[in-house]
């Protein structure tokens, strides 16, 4: 009988492990330092935060209390800004999904004439640097009379999110066998029935990924929000965070606390749907 052998790691294995650690530890510090610094500020009273300590003498949740009760000049409109961010992100997610699914279905399954053209134009839009498009977009929204209206940000973000959404969904649709549609037509299904009963259920994983993608893109957007919205009760959370910088004596511990609260939902969504995000998005992001 052969016993399972537990042998000590050889010198060679130990040196490999040591070399891996030599990479892993700096990577860990590099990744976590800015995030740790933010959390540290969130639980530090002002004196500790400004003393450059690695751990506060008196960790406290008081900063969260101030933010949640809007007890500071910079935080007067925290909840309404949180609400603005949520409404805008959800609207962008839903609208992008509707538009991109319809477009991908039309191009990939219905083979609509000119579909390839639309796909190429959308892809071209995907490669316009966002900050470049922001300049004429600002004036365009002014011409449409939408400045300082949430619709301006929603529509701008839908414009930015759609091309990639369409592309990913088209790639996914192309993989579904044509026989499915043909069989459904034989059974007398109409196009809306095929869309609802055959196409949507099969596309679910990609739809989840794209919905999250558009939602996170809108929640995280700073530049467009900062250009298109300006009233304190209209702006989204990232713009409110940027506005903290306007004063020299900003309450950085409150800024970091608000930033921490703002960063939690997207991180939670990302990790909850990581399986879809990694499979659906990165695989399609760059085709070799």
């Amino acid at each position, binding site marked *: 009988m052969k016993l399972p052998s537990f042998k000590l790691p050889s010198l060679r294995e130990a040196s490999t492990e040591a070399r*891996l650690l030599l*990479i*892993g530890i700096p*990577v*860990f510090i590099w*990744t976590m*330092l*800015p*995030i740790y*610094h933010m959390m540290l*500020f969130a639980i530090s009273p002002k004196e500790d935060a400004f*003393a*450059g300590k690695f751990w506060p003498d008196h960790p406290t949740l008081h900063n969260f209390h101030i933010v949640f009760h809007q007890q500071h000049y910079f935080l007067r409109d925290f909840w309404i800004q949180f609400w603005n961010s949520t409404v805008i992100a959800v609207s962008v997610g839903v609208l992008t999904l*509707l*538009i*991109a699914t*319809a*477009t991908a279905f*039309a191009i990939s399954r*219905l083979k*609509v004439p000119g*579909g390839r053209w*639309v796909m*190429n134009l*959308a*892809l071209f*839009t995907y*490669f316009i*640097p966002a*900050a*470049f*498009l*922001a*300049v*004429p977009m*600002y*004036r*365009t929204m002014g011409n449409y009379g939408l400045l300082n209206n949430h619709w301006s940000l929603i529509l*701008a973000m*839908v414009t930015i999110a759609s091309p990639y959404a369409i*592309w990913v969904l088209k790639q996914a649709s192309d993989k579904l066998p044509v026989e499915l549609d043909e069989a459904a037509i034989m059974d007398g299904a109409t*196009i*809306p029935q095929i869309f609802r009963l055959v196409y949507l259920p099969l596309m679910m994983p990609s739809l989840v990924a794209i919905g999250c993608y558009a939602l996170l893109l809108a929640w*995280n957007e*700073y*530049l467009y929000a900062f250009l298109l919205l300006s009233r304190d009760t209209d702006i989204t959370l990232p713009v409110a*965070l*940027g506005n903290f*910088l306007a004063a020299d004596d900003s309450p950085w511990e409150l800024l*970091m606390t608000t*930033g921490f609260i703002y*960063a939690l939902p*997207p*991180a939670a969504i990302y*990790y909850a749907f*990581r399986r879809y995000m*990694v499979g659906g998005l990165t695989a399609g992001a*760059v*085709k*070799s």
Partner: protein
Amino acid sequence: MAITLSTSDQAIPGAPLAGRLSTPQVWGIVLLAPYALVFLAFVIYPVGYGLWLARHPSSYVALYNDPIFARAAINTLVFLVIGINFKMLVALFLSGFFIQERSWIRWLSVLFILPWAVPSIPTILSVRFMFNPEWGMVNHLIFKFTGEDGPNWLNDPTVALTMAIMMHIWKSLPFWTLILMTGRLAIPGDLFEAADVDGATWWQKFRYITWPSVRTLYLTCTLLSMIWTLGDFNSVYLLTGGGPADLTHVLSTLGIRYLRLDQLSLAMASIVCALPFVLPLMYFMMKRLSR
């Protein structure tokens, strides 16, 4: 004369085009319409309008005479050529590290993705305060160990630009590492086993197996990252604000600066100046992805 209808030509009652188009095509056009509208209203119109605003030669003369523009153009080049290539090399290296099968490396990879998963604004501001000359953690540490005051980090244009590049790398490194990991994982494992049997060194395995397999992916990623980085406004604006003395602007922050100064034609002209370099890249990438 008999009129024959193909099976797919069951016309929808009341649809005007039904005579000439088949039902799926009518539906296709209906479903394509929302995106077409968005595209016309928020891509074609702004782009056309922007180009029209940038038509005056005087704007370009004004740009040429603005030292901030020249500086921003150089900064953008440094950002793209040095910053992005450095980032992609590190990503290529780390993708090799993260495909090692260790449970602690798997845990580390979950944390490693955090910069990509969280919004950039709070973390950029966090770094900004970390390097605050008076109250920041970094200068506190320097004072503790050397007894001397640390430098005023963001007040030196070279250091400030380097830090903006580092900030960009911090944010986007996980994404590109992940992409390159999928590229590496697609290489059949028996190639490496055969190389091990033949006694190949680490470098030989990389040179003759890994690199030929991921080369195309790596170059595509580099180009794509360059295009997107042109639009990276946050890393520079929120860390340095373009300062000190407007010396760390890149084209994206400069365009917005002109916009805020109500010099829209200058803003568009500065973007038009970048187009000869960007358009070929965009066209190339579009061709690549639409295959």
